[in-house]
């Protein structure tokens, strides 16, 4: 591209002005990101000026194979997968259903769409606190509702598995709007004459969905699945706000934070074990990478089959 704004030294002005952004990016994002794997082989702490030693694969061995701690770690890993599975499938299904329903010519669709999308702006703290109140166990709305069916729940203060399940609910409540919006923008790209043609051919609305909507929605399906899977594998903010660091509920992201930056759990205060936390975050990263790549591979093949 020819440059019009002068010759000679003036040619370097774009480079000069580009520099701050690039330096910020390299120093704050890229290099630290690359350094995570290096730190994972050390016994780095969070203390300024503390000596650091090379440990080789020691952190990884400890994380995966040493006693009760590694059992807890693997439990957290399993929980991360469970969280990912339920959040992704339910959020995907609800988001798709909401988008398809809202894409019809109905009254008030704008209001409903805005309402479902609204939690996105609130952030984990407000989302979490609003739901802590909604799940107030002593006569709160949800407690009353369950009472109608003769059920009881301690909600976030109950059994770990129960508290965990409620975090899944809030996570979906908070993010379903995003899935819905992406589906809606996909639905709007489908030409309406295709539906008219299907109607003339006598297709039921279910047949129109499976033969027109679903295949043509493939790009949004791929986007949503990828975003939801990767997002939910790494998400743990709502755990922090809703239940705190509690045994039997941690997911990997929270565990990494707790080991790296110290966290009191009952009477146990963990130290700042940043090398170990770096190893744990590499393990989470590999998990995201493997699942992400597998899903991408499957989705690409499916897309090639459907859209040709």
């Amino acid at each position, binding site marked *: *591209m020819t*440059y*019009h704004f*002068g010759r000679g030294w003036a040619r370097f*002005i*774009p480079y000069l*002005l*580009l520099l*701050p*952004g690039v330096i*910020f*990016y390299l*120093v*704050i*994002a*890229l290099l630290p*990101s690359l*350094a*995570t794997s290096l*730190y994972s082989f050390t016994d780095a702490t969070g203390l*300024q000026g503390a000596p650091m030693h090379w440990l080789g694969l020691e952190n990884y061995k400890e994380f995966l194979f040493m006693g009760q701690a590694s059992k807890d770690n693997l439990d957290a890993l399993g929980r991360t997968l469970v969280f990912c599975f339920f959040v992704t499938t339910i959020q995907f299904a*609800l988001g798709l*259903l*909401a988008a398809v329903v809202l894409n019809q010519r*109905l009254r*008030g669709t704008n209001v*409903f769409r805005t*309402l*479902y999308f*609204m939690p*996105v*702006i*609130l*952030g*984990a*703290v*407000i989302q979490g606190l609003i739901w802590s*109140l*909604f799940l*107030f166990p002593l*006569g*709160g*709305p949800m407690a009353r509702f369950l009472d109608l069916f003769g059920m009881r729940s301690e909600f976030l203060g109950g059994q770990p598995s129960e508290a965990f399940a409620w975090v899944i609910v809030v996570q979906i409540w908070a993010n379903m709007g*995003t899935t819905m*919006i*992406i589906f809606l*923008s996909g639905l709007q790209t489908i030409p309406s004459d295709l539906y008219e043609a299907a109607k003339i051919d006598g297709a039921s609305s279910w047949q129109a969905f499976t033969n027109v909507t679903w295949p043509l929605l493939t790009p949004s399906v791929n*986007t949503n699945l*990828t*975003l939801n899977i990767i997002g939910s594998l*790494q998400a743990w*903010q709502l755990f922090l*706000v809703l239940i705190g660091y509690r045994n039997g509920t941690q997911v990997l992201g929270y565990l990494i*934070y707790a080991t790296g*930056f110290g966290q009191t759990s009952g009477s146990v205060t963990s130290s700042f074990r940043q090398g170990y*936390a*770096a190893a744990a*975050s*590499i393990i989470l*990263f590999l998990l995201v990478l493997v699942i992400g790549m597998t899903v991408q591979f499957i989705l690409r093949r499916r897309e090639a089959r459907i859209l040709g």
Partner: protein
Amino acid sequence: MTTTTQAPAMRRIPWGRIGSYAFLLILAVIYLGPLLMLVNTSLKTMPAFMKDATGPAIELNFQNFVDAWNKASFPKYLLNSAIYTFAATTIYVITAVYVAFPIARGYVKFSGALLTLFVIALFLPPALIPQFQLVLNLGLYNNPIGYILLFVVNPIGIVILVNYIKTVPKELDEAAAMDGCGYFRFVWSVVLPLIQPALATVIVLQAIGIWNEIITPTIYLTSKDYYPITRGLIVFQGVYGSNWPTLAAAVLMLTLPMLLLFLFLQRYIISGLTAGSVKG
């Protein structure tokens, strides 16, 4: 009568429509319910709440808002949040435009590779631990400047800007240069106004992200004087956790303005999401 006749054309009940509305309404209750509970609780006295948590707030106890405002150090934390959000977003957007423009135009060598370099961080391990070590060793731990610096980077914003700048006609560059307009001034006073929609999207996404952040302040800011409002609310919850009316008032005071803002900014958030997802 043996001849079969066509069933008389009955007026069909629009089950699809009814079902659709039922679904939308049920979902609406799930989305509105928690908010209504928040509003209702914030207007109650503590004894009324303990007696009947869900009953309507008849007494309209506005004292909760006064209490929350004072006890939660609301003004200080709000100001902190505003400073962090404004400073980091401003620095980010200005530097990002001067990164995105020459890349989109090819005014710097290897611009394609440069863009890839920016995107690559999205596919690398989290920078959490080394970032902390960096900030710690620079002496910027528990320091507002260090905190702000953590938010002046966002690769997705660069991608959105590059894509949008490509739609700005290149002939403008030539014409402006002929008129003696310099590079810096051209980007600042000609390109910026032309890319407003993309700019607004990037600003809104970045600002909301910083405003709502809770993990970063938990890690990096230890003194109360530096807390943003998110961290302040969590601390307030720790102290007044059992006093739901006051806590609800505090949460509501933060929620309402954000919801109002949301109504105005929704368009930009949506375009940011869909633009980001096309690339993702």
